[in-house]
């Protein structure tokens, strides 16, 4: 079975796995936000893959960007948390 395919036959969106892992590592507050490089190290996913998934998650309000002087950092919003919990509940 395709790793992204659910037994129901619906495909779990690829960016959803990133959202779940960000939640699981606790990136759920601005003060815990991480850069794409830090995320890559923590969840062992290519930076390029992370960067390809982030825009949709940000657009849908599941991820927020925390701007700093040097780089952008990312964290999961309450809406993103609820989205993740829907698969676990």
């Amino acid at each position: 079975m395709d790793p992204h395919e659910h037994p129901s036959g619906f495909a779990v969106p690829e960016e959803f796995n990133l959202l779940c892992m960000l939640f699981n590592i606790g990136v759920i507050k601005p003060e815990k936000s991480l850069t794409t490089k830090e995320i890559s190290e923590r969840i062992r996913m290519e930076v390029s893959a992370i960067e390809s998934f982030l825009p949709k998650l940000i657009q849908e309000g599941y991820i927020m960007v925390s701007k700093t002087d040097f780089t952008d950092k990312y964290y999961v919003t309450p809406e993103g948390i609820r989205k993740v919990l829907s698969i676990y509940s």
Partner: protein
Amino acid sequence: MKILMLTWEFPPRIVGGVARHCFGLAQALAQRGHEIYVITLEFPGAPAYEDMDGVKVYRAAIELGHPNFLTWVLLFNHFMEKLAARLCHKVKPDVIHAHDWLVSPSAISLKQYLNTPLILTVHSTEVGRAQGLHGPDSFTIDGFEWWATYEARRVIVTSEAMKNEVAGHFNLSRDKIETIPNAVDFERFEVSVDRQMIRRKYIAPHEKMVLFTGRLTPQKGVEYLIQAVPLILKRNPEAKIVIVGEGWLRDGLQNLARSIRCQDKVFFTGFLSERDLEEIMVSSDVLVVPSIYEPFGIVALEGMAAGAPVVASRTGGLAEVIEHGQTGILVYPRDPESIAWGVSQVLSNQNYAQQLVKNSKDKLRKNFGWNAVAEKTIKLYEEVLKG
């Protein structure tokens, strides 16, 4: 009595029915003078400790994370257990009441450490949610569920269907399982709203609101409701389907609506606040609960309390909550034609719809209030303490 309640969902961390159940039960127990200590998980904006209507709520911060889901579950259990252990230096609970497998590692440890009886409420099972055990994670979760039912002195389920499922799947003695149904807070839905104003947010003035509310996951059967849309529209062209809730399936459902060219007749609201949810339920024309697996279906009770005629799948607890043709309409699960028929029965016959609502409100007040649930739960605690 001092009760330590463990749950990974508690308001404002609301995903499914578990948070509402735990809050309703905790509140009802506290109102009877029992001391309720809830250990749950942190949520952005929620304090680490608060007193909610007499319920003492402690939220554990998850200080360590891990990308793997099951490792993360063990980690958050560790932090819940630490928090509970600190609390129990000051307070010795008489009973530990855990909700679902997610908190079972900490609940089992605390049971041993405190030498206190453990009660477990099984809100659903992995084999039911996933409609089978499809991979290593599913088998592991199933194992946790079995272990928790084994360790618990008594197991609570919310319907006879769940009693059969839990007894059969975990090979558990039926004597160990107690059925205590879910309940609803009627007052929540006795809100005074400008119904027309609420409806205008989601539908045009001439349209009728066919409402779904719940998690957007395969278990909830929303795909069958969407497949039913062309059939519903044939019978009731003025119908519009409003889908409230979040979930990983949202993209797939939106694609499905587009693929059958009914996207203009299906509106996805996303997550709504409790207040907005109450208002939309009160303002809807029919509530559809098309689940393929539903241990209880608290949303059906909420719809009934809100005065919405309910059309629900004949599955699990729903078939026990709703009396077909009297307090709602039961349709076949996974069957768009049957769903469309049920919706049409309500939308096409206003008097019939009103009779269903009246009957269901009467039934609710008799059987599904938190007072009754609290009394039954206390009785069970007392039985356990007597040994």
